[in-house]
């Protein structure tokens, strides 16, 4: 399956061109990766992945553990080499690069980790200096650059502390500063907030969003939490069984999910599910001759999300609507409503047509008597 993610240059992703490094594109072409098991078999981790991440985009790849998302990410900086296909980062074929070329590519690709991976033997400043030392940066210039990075992530008071003396959120800030040290064009995030509590997660995500906006660098993050994608990713891809099953702008995927895996991730994050007493009685097909209600999901997207559509429906068609569950939330600064309603099955067809005519999406979930 071929998927092209083209970022809309909305407020969330537009880079400020202030002379900072510009993000690079990441292109996966027919990428596959399989591993040999000690028993002599092979395990396919990633298959037939075609994905384009445009420069400056903030893209989230979501998948369950073992779905292949980590392998996908690690191929971008050559920690894993693809078995088939190729991965182009800023026009360089990562899989085909020799050791020297790969080291040069890696200086353009920063990475942050779930467990931070900070050196216990170095202070905050020392950890951030490490990639600069590795890149052979002029020793005299390192302290100024490190101070600038520490300032950016808000850790000036902790510059001379050791990682063991920091909280999880602070450690990840060090990780982010370290990843940015060599002014990379791409930032890879490997479950960067999975080890953090919800509040700290929000502050770390806000920092990533600021960095993406201010530096214009491309961010590719993997996560198993839909909330992370919703909160910061302008684009997303869903990976299942090593394949990308759905991809596109986050808003579109959230409002029009097509694949069951996407839907199951969504139900976890939107919290809009049928109350148990209804779900238990739900049937797939209507029973003839009985007085029944049809249960439908109404999705309000874009400009219609704030219109009083159900009120209008009652007024114009005289149909009464029971609201079973619902929420309105924000994705990429755009409102997105999700309502579960039931209405007279005989008139449901007309109601659905009315709603769709007004730009809402409907989905029949079943029937209850």
């Amino acid at each position, binding site marked *: 399956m071929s998927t092209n993610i083209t970022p809309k240059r909305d407020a969330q992703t537009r880079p400020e061109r202030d002379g900072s490094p510009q993000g690079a594109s990441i292109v996966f072409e027919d990428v596959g990766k399989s591993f040999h098991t000690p028993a002599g078999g092979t395990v396919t981790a990633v298959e037939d992945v075609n994905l384009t991440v445009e420069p400056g985009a903030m893209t989230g790849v979501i998948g369950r553990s073992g779905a292949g998302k980590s392998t996908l990410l690690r191929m971008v*900086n050559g*920690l894993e080499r693809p078995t088939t296909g190729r991965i182009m980062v800023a026009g360089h074929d990562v899989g085909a690069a020799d050791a020297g070329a*790969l*080291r*040069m*590519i*890696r*200086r353009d*690709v*920063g*990475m942050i*980790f779930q*467990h931070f*991976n*900070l*050196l*216990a*033997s*170095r202070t905050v400043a020392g950890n951030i200096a*490490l*990639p600069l*030392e*590795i*890149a052979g940066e002029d020793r005299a210039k390192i302290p100024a650059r490190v101070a600038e990075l520490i300032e950016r992530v808000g850790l000036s008071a902790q510059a001379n502390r*050791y*990682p*063991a*003396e920091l909280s999880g959120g602070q450690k990840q800030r060090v990780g982010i500063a370290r990843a940015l040290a*060599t002014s990379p064009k791409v930032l*890879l995030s490997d479950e960067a907030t999975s080890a953090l509590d919800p509040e700290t997660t929000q502050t770390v995500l806000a920092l990533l969003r600021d960095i993406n906006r201010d530096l214009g660098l491309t961010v590719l993050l993997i996560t198993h939490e839909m909330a992370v994608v919703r909160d910061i990713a302008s684009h997303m891809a869903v990976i299942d069984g090593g394949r990308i099953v759905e991809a596109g702008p986050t808003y579109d995927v959230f409002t029009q999910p097509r694949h069951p895996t996407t839907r199951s991730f969504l139900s976890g994050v939107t919290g809009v599910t049928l109350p148990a007493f209804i779900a238990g009685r739900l049937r797939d097909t209507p029973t003839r001759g009985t007085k029944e209600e049809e249960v439908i999901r109404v999705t309000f997207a874009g400009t219609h999300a704030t219109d009083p559509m159900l009120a209008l429906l009652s007024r114009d068609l005289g149909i009464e609507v029971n609201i079973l569950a619902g929420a309105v939330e924000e994705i990429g600064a755009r409102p997105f409503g999700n309502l579960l309603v039931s209405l007279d099955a005989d008139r449901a067809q007309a109601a659905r047509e009315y709603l769709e005519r007004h730009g809402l999406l409907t989905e029949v979930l079943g029937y209850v008597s």
Partner: protein
Amino acid sequence: MSANLIHLLVEATLQTLYMVAISGLLGALFGLPLGVYLAISQRGELLSSPVINKVLGLVVNATRSVPFIILVVAIIPLTRMIAGTSIGTTAAIVPLTIAAVPFIARLVENAIREVDGGLIEAARSMGATPFQIIRKVLIPEALPSITLGLTLALVSLIGYSAMVGAVGGEGLGDLGIRYGYQRFMPDVMLVVVVILIVLVQLVQSLGEWIAARVDKRAPKSRGN
């Protein structure tokens, strides 16, 4: 105890320190890189070369299997080749070093292998060369364990150095055997034992103090 005996004890202590210091230094000089290489040449590691790793492992194990007193005698030709003579305190440094190298190598290997693989991955993702990873990540991160390993090696060398009297090496052990045992002078034996205990205690405490200083893994109060 006569002034002569006291003089002998002081001299023997200095000889022991000399042997242990030089063989410890040489042992670390060769054992450290060997240990690092043993750790990173394992299958799937940084400089994976399983065959060389296996061969080196066998040599290390073989050397460590030989009881020290046998090693001292068995390598006399080698000792003569290196030191010019096979007897005396300086000559004893050769077998002591040869015993120290594989011992230190194994301790260093274990210390390096304890370093979290995530750190190696982070360094690789920064574009580090294998040599940079060794110098900037593996050794600094393993330093507390390496320090404790070297302490253990020095303590063992103090013990080994007592056996080199067999090939004319001097020092506290030799003094204890020749005076305390063969000439029935239990007071000399007692003093020798006390000095050895104090030496080991000093080395151990110093090693632990240095290891604690370089260990930043656990949070501690920063009362400087």
